[in-house]
């Protein structure tokens, strides 16, 4: 039976209180807060963060396929999964696939992964899901949704949980949609969406699936789904015999928001963090139909080496002081920036990007075979002993680092001023100068511990310039 080898999530560190959003629109904010992707994050970079978290203690593990699910892919044409695979240094034999167009795509990617594993086409599949939901300013979903990503490494051996069964039901209804060329989702009338959208479909799917699998509601410790409103879905599953106040995994709705295609799997990950051996978790992924599957933990969950837990990430946060910043980060207002040299003079060109894919995109430099000097970026002639072309690849992206010196720069154009320019020295050798992201200004000191994170530096000329930044270590 196929199941889960490892998992990890990424919740952006910035949070916006819903009361702050409410105040901005002179209306009442709902309780709690939502996660907000930094200006340098998108669905792709968040998926990389979740995948790196998932693989933190499984670095050498063979990954045969990488599936990426999102409704907010950075490119409409050009695969995201291939770029994620390159960042993770997966081999060219990796089967990369993008899933999209429905919030169900996260759980559907799991379904496809199970099929690949069960058919023998792949031994392991890394499923990543991420979303930055696209709703109008002032919409209720702007408050209730949030940004986030999750990754599951699925396979047949060394499982911390088995996926006992997986059912999928399709359903055609126009409840939430976004047409080509439009920036924001549209939704049908609220009562219709509740009652004849997810209410009808989820109830039908879970009911049929439980019946088909001879399963009962009380066999599950948790029910996990991608629901914007836990209260109304609670009523739906209550009619199926579940006790929503005990069984519905709803914490993320309160503190992070509905993360779309990642939500059901993030909820499942959170449920797994507190699950003991032999417990069952029911997962429902809604979106033009519904995927329903059952996870059952194994004995191995007791000794599972967690990456950064979702539970910890919920509590590690930087509160945003204003709603304006949220609008600016999402590009929803065109703000006046200090007149600085135009970015198009630093536009990445496809040939230059391509040359760097194999080495530098994974944040690799070189280590001299002759004198052992570690250097970034990669060099052909050693900076120490000057020998030519005697270099081994040396990857920095997981190596602990420290800040040698830094400056908060207030004149560089950025959507998160100041730019914290940082000189980073890696443990064991190697130096890099880069920006520090997701930092509080008062925590930045010489000698602080840093780790590396994959981000979007900027976007110009229709090309996203993805690269690495440093960030304070969060345990």
């Amino acid at each position, binding site marked *: 039976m196929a199941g889960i080898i490892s998992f990890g999530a990424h919740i952006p560190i910035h949070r916006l209180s819903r009361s702050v959003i409410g105040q901005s629109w002179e209306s009442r904010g709902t309780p709690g807060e939502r996660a907000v992707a930094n200006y340098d994050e998108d669905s792709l970079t968040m998926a990389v963060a979740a995948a790196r978290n998932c693989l933190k203690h499984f670095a050498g593990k063979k990954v045969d396929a990488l599936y990426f699910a999102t409704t907010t892919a950075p490119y409409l044409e050009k695969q995201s999964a291939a770029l994620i695979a390159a960042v993770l240094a997966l081999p060219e034999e990796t089967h990369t696939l993008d899933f999209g167009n429905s919030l169900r795509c996260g759980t559907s990617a799991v379904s496809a992964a199970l099929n690949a594993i069960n058919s023998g086409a792949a031994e392991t599949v890394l499923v990543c899901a991420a979303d930055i939901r696209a709703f109008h300013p002032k919409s209720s979903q702007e408050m209730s949704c949030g940004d986030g990503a999750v990754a599951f490494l699925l396979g047949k051996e060394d499982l911390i949980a088995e996926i006992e069964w997986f059912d999928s039901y399709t359903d055609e209804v126009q409840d939430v949609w976004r047409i080509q060329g439009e920036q924001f989702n549209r939704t049908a009338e609220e009562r219709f969406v509740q009652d004849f959208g997810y209410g009808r479909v989820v109830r039908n799917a879970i009911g049929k699936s439980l019946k088909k699998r001879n399963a009962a509601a009380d066999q599950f410790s948790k029910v996990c789904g991608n629901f914007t409103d836990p209260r109304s879905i609670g009523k739906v599953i209550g009619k199926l015999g579940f006790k929503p106040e005990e069984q519905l995994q709803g914490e993320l709705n309160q503190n992070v928001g509905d993360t779309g295609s990642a939500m059901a799997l993030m909820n499942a990950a959170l449920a797994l963090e507190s699950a003991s051996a032999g417990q069952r978790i029911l997962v429902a992924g809604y979106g033009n139909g519904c995927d329903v599957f059952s996870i059952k933990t194994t004995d191995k969950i007791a000794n599972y080496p967690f990456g950064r837990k979702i539970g910890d990430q919920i509590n590690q946060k930087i509160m945003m002081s204003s709603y304006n910043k949220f609008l600016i980060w999402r590009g929803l207002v065109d703000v006046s920036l*200090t*007149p*600085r*040299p*135009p970015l198009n*003079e*630093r*536009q*990445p060109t496809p040939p*230059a990007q391509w040359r*760097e894919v194999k080495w*530098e995109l994974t944040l690799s430099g070189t280590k001299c075979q002759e004198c052992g000097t570690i*250097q*970034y*970026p990669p*060099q052909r002639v050693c*900076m120490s002993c000057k020998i030519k072309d005697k270099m081994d690849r040396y990857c920095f992206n997981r190596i602990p680092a420290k800040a*040698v*010196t*830094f*400056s*908060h*720069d*207030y*004149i*560089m154009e950025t959507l998160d001023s*100041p*730019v914290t*320019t940082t*000189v980073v*020295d890696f443990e064991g*050798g*190697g*130096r890099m*100068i*880069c*920006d520090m992201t997701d930092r509080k200004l008062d925590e930045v000191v*010489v000698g602080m511990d840093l780790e590396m994170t994959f981000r979007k*530096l*900027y976007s110009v000329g229709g090309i996203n*310039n993805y*690269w690495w930044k440093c960030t304070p270590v969060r345990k």
Partner: protein
Amino acid sequence: MESIKNKVAIVGMGCVKFGENFDKSIDDMLIDAAYEAYADAGIESKDIQAAWFGNLWAGHTGQILATPLKLSYIPVTHTENACATGSEALRGACYAVAAGACDIALAIGVEKLKDTGFMGLPQTRPNATWSYRLSSMTAPAGFALMATRYFAKNNLSLEEGKRLLAKIAVKNHHNGSLSPKAQFQKEITLETAMKAPIVSSPLGLFDCCPVSDGAAAAIVVRADMAKSFRPDPIYIKAMQICQGPREGFMSPAYDYAHVEETRRAGVAAYKEAGIGNPAQEISIAEVHDCFTITELTIMEDLQFSLSGKAPEDIESGRYEIGGALPINTDGGLKCFGHPIGATGLRMMYEVYKQLQGKADKRQIKNPIIGLTHNQGGEPGAAVVSVAIVGNEK
């Protein structure tokens, strides 16, 4: 290896008023600087046998110079060495004269930065070694990184460090107030400098030189001809340049509290000029104070102060006009701004005038040997020119 010492002399110089010269084009500034230098040397345009032209952003070839000056089909070399471009133009002209390739050469630098429509310097196109994927750091940030390390290395608190840097700004602004060609000619107080808005922490507004327009020019000739042009020529003693291989950006061995290229260029120049004790033998120096922290570290890197002792020497007034080793007597980059291609020649203009005793209110007593230090790039990845000149052969 032969030295250039006493083979070449400067017999004329020109320099326009630096600043936000919205009313002047590149052509205007080139013509004004060149014709002041011609008049100073007592020559005409037709006497120039070859020219070295320093500029970064005006375009390609020597045509940018030959067109406004109507140079008559002579060789023009367009030089670029980032912020050390002006000195590089002078170095090229001096080497050609020393080699006997020509007897009278023009070195001229110009930059027009106020027409770009934005703050700061234009971007340089990404290239293979400075990838678009590396840090987007600004020039102030690049030097701020050194300030933080210098403070830490010398146990200076942020307050003490900023006060020390402010003293440099106050000194240079005082000198600028005596310089009719400076962009800023106003004195400032220590408090003003220390309380100024932060540009790149810990550097504030008064720690940074402005961006400006300007041009400066020199006429160089064979040393044995020099006195036929004027009674007080200035002789080239050393003309060194040091290009770092960007090692400080890559090697944890670099302490980020000094500039290696400055140290090495200084050592090479002192050797070429035969100077054993620079702290005693140099009468005056114009150094690249693009930021106050740069001037501070240059004092140690050029051996004017012992390592870690620059703060004491700054406090004691050693580097003020009237001090033992006056630095940036014209106000430096702090008051002249930094039109990239022109700065190195502007520095030499001040040293030349001082060595001739023609620096008016800024005049120091009995100078013999002067030095210019002109830096391109940033700490960890710099190119540094050190030129030494004297008024005796």
